[in-house]
């Protein structure tokens, strides 16, 4: 009997420990959902807490895909778990339209200087002219290349490279025996993974995802041409394992000297140029993203921003933090504590005007240029019913993009012909769109 009592007591004790652990929440606590990119913001937020002693910040940090799913579940069920969310260019207009986010631009103080925030980025985060989130990170895409290898081949990178140039350069730098592959591109399936890049390729070759009536265009000649080009290029001059290399794997490959060319996010430039993180810091150079037949949609646009769900009970405090974390003063703070190389990129014009920033980040000018040139409202030369350069701003796109990504990866791995891959993707997309009710009218 004693043992029963002790066991029961133990259980009760543990349960109590579990229950009492919950009373840690104070009155004015803000819960923030962030990705792992926000380490600096986390650390510096102590300054915010010092200036606002009545607000306590609680952090939830998760990987991007998990975060998106977690946050979407919460916001769609009005769970109220978070007061501030990290959301991207994809979700913000959709959620703003549904009224799930608090409007940000209606009571910003003049000192915030909203106009200083780069316009394309602001457009990404607005719906119907209203701003629903403020950015703390912005990126576009451009070309990374090994200047030393290009010099050795006697070639020079033009100011506005075309994809013909890229083919030529990849061929010249491809040297598997020396452990260097001509070009590394994303191949891992995912709407934000391989299709982020592929959408830009399709755009600049003159294609588009949907026509004005929302009919998918995946079997159009432009699509066939782009995907065939991509598969051939990677088969000839790409590294093995290309069909499961995502951004991270390619970044590792480039940083360890295995790639001659890489077309990917501008945000990686900070690492590739940092001798602590990269073996090719002194050998890398940058150029704008290559163009195919038309200049539209050749560089993508992405931003991470802070938004406030309407279910929050602390709108005023949340707005205070959100304004602080994306202000000019914050950029200056980061520059002072961590250096200019790691200040939030791609958000404010002011950052790019600072001489110190230009000195610390040799790729700054190109990044700014890429962002300003990106046009999410006209990603293709043909008219389109959607916004988004490297994605389509509709809720159904995640599933569509990932399925198409799987099909193209299969083509790249040689398991399927390009034609079949596109045919499958076309059918899947049509099915999904029909079910979602796009063709009713």
């Amino acid at each position, binding site marked *: 009997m004693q043992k029963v009592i002790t066991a029961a007591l133990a259980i009760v004790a543990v349960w109590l420990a579990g229950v009492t652990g919950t009373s840690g929440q104070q009155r004015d606590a803000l819960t923030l959902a962030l990705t792992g990119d926000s380490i600096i913001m986390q650390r510096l937020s102590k300054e915010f807490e010092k200036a606002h002693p009545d607000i306590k910040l609680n952090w939830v940090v998760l990987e991007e895909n998990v975060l998106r799913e977690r946050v*979407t579940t919460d916001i769609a069920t009005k769970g109220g778990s978070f007061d501030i969310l990290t959301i991207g260019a994809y979700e913000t207009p*959709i959620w703003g339209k*549904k009224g799930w986010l608090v409007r940000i631009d209606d009571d910003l103080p003049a000192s915030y200087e909203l106009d200083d925030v780069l316009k394309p980025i602001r457009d990404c985060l607005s719906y119907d002219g209203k701003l629903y989130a403020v950015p703390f990170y912005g990126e576009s895409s451009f070309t990374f290349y090994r200047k030393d290898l290009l010099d050795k081949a006697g070639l020079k990178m033009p100011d506005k490279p075309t994809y013909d140039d890229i083919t030529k350069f990849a061929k010249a730098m491809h040297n598997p025996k020396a452990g260097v592959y001509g070009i590394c591109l994303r191949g891992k*399936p995912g709407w934000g993974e391989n299709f982020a890049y592929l959408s830009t390729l399709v755009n600049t070759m003159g294609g588009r995802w949907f026509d004005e009536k929302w009919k998918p265009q995946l079997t159009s000649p432009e699509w066939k041409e782009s995907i065939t080009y991509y598969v051939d290029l990677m088969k000839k001059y790409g590294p093995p394992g290309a*069909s*499961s290399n995502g951004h991270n794997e390619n970044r590792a490959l480039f940083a360890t000297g295995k790639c001659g060319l890489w077309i990917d996010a501008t945000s990686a430039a900070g690492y590739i140029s940092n001798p602590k993180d990269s073996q090719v810091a002194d050998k890398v150079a940058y150029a704008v993203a290559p163009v195919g037949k038309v200049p539209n949609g050749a560089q993508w646009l992405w931003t991470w921003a802070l938004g406030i769900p309407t279910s929050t009970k602390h709108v005023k405090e949340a707005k205070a933090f959100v304004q602080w974390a994306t202000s000019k003063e914050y950029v200056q703070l980061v520059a002072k504590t961590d250096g200019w190389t790691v200040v939030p990129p791609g958000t404010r014009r002011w950052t790019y005007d600072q001489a110190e920033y230009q000195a610390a980040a040799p790729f700054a000018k190109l990044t700014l240029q890429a962002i300003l040139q990106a046009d999410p409202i006209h990603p293709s030369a043909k008219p389109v019913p959607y916004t988004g350069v490297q994605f389509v701003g509709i809720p159904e796109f995640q599933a569509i993009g990932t399925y198409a990504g*799987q099909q193209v990866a299969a083509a790249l791995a040689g*398991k399927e012909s390009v034609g079949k891959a596109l045919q499958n993707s076309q059918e*899947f997309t049509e099915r999904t769109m029909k079910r979602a009710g796009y063709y009713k009218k």
Partner: protein
Amino acid sequence: METAAAPANAPAPARRAARRGGRDKTLLLKLPSVLLLLAWSTIPLAMTLWFSFQRYNLLNPEERGFLGIENYHFLLTDTGLATAIWNTLLLVGWVLLVTVGLGTLLAVLFDQDFFGRGVARVLLIAPFFVMPTVSALVWKNLLMHPVNGLFAFLLHSVGLPTIDWFADLPLTAIIIMVAWQWLPFAALILLTAIQALDPERKEAARMDGAGPISMFFFIILPHLARPIGVVVMIESLFLMSIFAEIFVTTSGGPGLASTNLPFLIYRYALLDFDVGGASAGGVLAIVLANVVAIFLMRSVARNLEA
């Protein structure tokens, strides 16, 4: 030869006595777990069934309505469904084979007395401690990567061509990863079961002249029949819902080569936020799992009551 060590049929009088006086008692003992599981399983199950007949997309929560079997129709006409189910069965089957087969051998091995047995056992069990996501990442990037991975390096140094695991053998790669993780589970359970084997019986058999092979087949293996049954049932449970490893490494690709049913459902549930479709998928998964369970039970059931 066997005088039954653990007879389920106790001498008649005791059993009758237990039944008479003990009936209420056993019911009370079983009641909490049964009730709890009833609540836990029925409520979500009922809700899932309900949702599977509705149009309910989290991103468009205003559009609700009864859809009849349209969700199921959509699911069953998904061209990837057959592949997903087949892959699920392949994955479960192969991992079971490897873990139970190898697990039995390892259990016998680790039952023997050798130097540093304690430490070696912990090392053997360790793979089960690691989070599936992490082990998948370690396997993918540090070991199996065709350019930067350790395997590539080793193959390269002996002049063999490197294997592009995730392009050419995606399901095999996943099977290897999952089997590595679950082998300790099987080995541990079987080892514990072997330890329960009466040493006197082993001695008697040895004195009768039984060598290690006949010992294995006639004493150990029959004794392990029930634990193996349990291992198979429990492992299949988890193996039918493998998700993290696929998500992290291949995202179900290339094409649908490594997509299993949970991953397919994930695409509905968490990419589409299509609760209706995902629920239909969930119901389908339960049906499939029950089919597998019935099949397993047939082969394993005898051992349960033995």
